[in-house]
């Protein structure tokens, strides 16, 4: 299973090792790990749309496969309450060469940020609030759409 949505933490080393286990064609692995930033935020709770989330992530991975020659792809996204420094998301991609792995990893994160149904609620000293979507995330997506 290349996509997981779970409360539990993940082991980055084990995930990366499993990505290319037994695959001698892979020459590159690129990965991204998103963390809870902790300057003002004391905790963060992630809500999602069960069913649609897994479907949306699988579609994003398929789109990436349509653009680059990829080996294995792994996406893990956590839900529930997370503390500063905790891991939120892992995207890992293997390919024969680094360019495809770097690009696909960034593409999947940019799409995940704007298309996968997750919502963050932050707790701060002033109370808790839903995080607003960022325009810069839409702009990051537009970059890929402009270069099909």
């Amino acid at each position: 299973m290349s996509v997981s949505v779970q409360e539990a933490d993940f082991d980055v080393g084990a995930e990366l090792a499993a990505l290319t286990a037994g695959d001698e064609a892979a020459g590159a692995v690129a990965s991204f790990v998103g963390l809870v930033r902790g300057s003002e935020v004391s905790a963060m709770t992630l809500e999602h749309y069960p069913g649609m989330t897994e479907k949306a992530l699988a579609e994003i991975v398929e789109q990436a496969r349509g653009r680059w020659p990829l080996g294995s792809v792994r996406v893990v996204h956590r839900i529930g309450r997370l503390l500063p420094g905790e891991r939120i998301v892992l995207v890992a991609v293997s390919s024969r060469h680094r360019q495809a792995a770097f690009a696909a990893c960034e593409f999947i994160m940019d799409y995940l940020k704007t298309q996968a149904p997750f919502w963050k609620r932050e707790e701060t000293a002033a109370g808790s609030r839903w995080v607003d979507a960022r325009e810069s995330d839409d702009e990051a997506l537009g970059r890929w759409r402009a270069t099909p």
Partner: protein
Amino acid sequence: MSTSIRVLYFASLREALGCGSEELPPAADIATVGALRARIAARGAPWQQLLEAKNLRAAVNQTMVGFDAPVRAGDEVAFFPPVTGG
């Protein structure tokens, strides 16, 4: 297959409405997501303000769609604010 339309609300929208899901009977004048939104907004406050939010997003059967997308009996339609995962 269900003959009603299942409507889901998420995140800040769910919280502000005090409602996570409901079942609506299908009607001839609810042919699109936009028409369904208008029907729900017609209830008045707080539905109207929240459903008419400019940045409202929608999905039909767990795929993100525009408000001109068709809605049929048995569909699952979700309304939610822009996503903020990752």
